[in-house]
């Protein structure tokens, strides 16, 4: 059973703020999601079978240097940046 405390804990780990009035609704939704996942888990198939559905192994890359991207490209999607760094503001 998913509890309000579970939702609060997950919110904490995910760095999400959940308003008090949304907790009950989210607890119910999360229970439905878990039930759905349980339905899949209960399907008659072994976990091994899902573990590696393409039956692939040992896909490797050789240890050869490929040029990196220009710094400007790397930082393009950063919400904030400064001095060629991604900038994370302290929200407190």
């Amino acid at each position, binding site marked *: 059973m998913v509890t309000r405390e579970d939702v609060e804990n997950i919110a904490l780990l995910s760095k999400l703020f959940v308003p008090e009035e949304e907790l009950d609704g989210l607890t119910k939704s999360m229970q439905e999601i878990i039930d759905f996942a349980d339905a899949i888990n209960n399907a008659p198939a072994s976990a091994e079978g899902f573990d590696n559905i393409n039956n692939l192994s040992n*896909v490797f890359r050789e240890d050869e240097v490929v040029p990196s991207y220009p710094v400007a490209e790397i930082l393009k999607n950063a919400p904030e940046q400064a001095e060629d760094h991604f900038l994370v503001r302290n929200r407190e």
Partner: protein
Amino acid sequence: MNYELVSGFETHIELSTKTKIFCGCTTQFGGEPNSHCCPVCIGLPGTLPVLNKEVVRFAVKAGLAVHGKIAEVAKMDRKNYCYPDLAKAYQISQLYAPLIIGGYIELSNGRKIRLHHIHIEEDAGKLIHQHGDTYVDYNRGGVPLIEIVSEPDIRSIDEAKEYVEKLQQVMRWVGISDCKMQEGSMRCDVNISVRPAGSEAFGTRTEIKNMNSITNIARAMAYEYERQVDLLESGGKVIQETLRFDDASGTTSPMRSKEDAHDYRYFRDPDLVTINVPRDEVERLRAEMPELPAEKRERYEAEYGIPEKDAALLTKYRRISEYFDKAIEGVKSPKTVSNFIIGQIFRRVETEADKEIFDVAVTPERLNELVRLLDSGKIRNNLAKSTLEKMLDTGKGALDFISESDMGGVDDSALLALCQAAVAGNPKAVEDFKSGKEKAIKALVGNVMKNSRGKADAVAAEAKIKELILS
């Protein structure tokens, strides 16, 4: 009450592959911020990580170096946590099926520190905290690491120091990492608890994160041991928590409450396929492994009669042992070679950094030539020593300093003549010796050695001089 220290280590070592673990960006240390990055290592959606083959090879070598078992099947997992040093909000690591299982590091007291496993994973980015904000550089993000997880087998600070030193030595030896603690290519998390001496049950442990020098590991452990003992003695309880060590004050303080493993919500990474290390590949790598320092040290002792302490010095760095191996080829007394290296040559390479590189002016072939001259009786020890000094000064060979006339011994009649001359020419030393100053004889022997250009047998000369004076 006496308390026993119990400790286990988690050691991160950066592998010296050319590229990152899942993309072709360089692993070079430093560089302009975010200049060694691509969409894979900054975790953009829709990118696909592909495992660097060399990372698997290096990890297998690490496993073989510590007598671990190479898993037949290994898998990559996602370790979820939300912090700016990880762009994807998860680190690709191994939990359920690590590459190496078991193994050990043997200490000089004969105890084996067992290893639980070694896994491969990606390093996180570097965070710079400034004016309350955080600046993120992902150059280090995706650099390959191995994490070596020991069992809680360490029982003292000395054992902990030796464990780290041995690990560092063997990983450098097999060439998978430079293990520079000051540059962060080797970092330790130290788990530590105490229990009443004789007790079997473990106490509650704390974990000191990110230790980057052996000195600080020792300081932090000493502080934490005292703190935990004091807590228990005063009726308190140790709380399981993660600590940081403050270099300036020498104390530990809590970092954050310890997250349980399930909080990381580990699960199989669907982007990365199963790793099956073929057995023939493992055997090929095993065959390529150099003789390990511990094996070499034992062989030097058993085969060449080199004292344990000297054998340890010769095997501390791979280059020194390779130098020694070349220099002893075909010589009668490897111990003489060892003495030359540890004595005269070490005086020229004083720092640990220099010893590791071991770039010596005299090539091992030239040292070999000098020792062969000594072996064959053509020159005596004194001459060999002074010649080695000249060779170290100039990088030239022994025969540049020793002429044919220096070679060969001094026969009995020549020795007698030299001794007579020494006695006749140094009446003061003779008087001193007669009046009981034993040491005065050294001056007379020195005179003989000098006039024979080091060719005389010093022991025979001393006996002959005593005979002359006392007769």
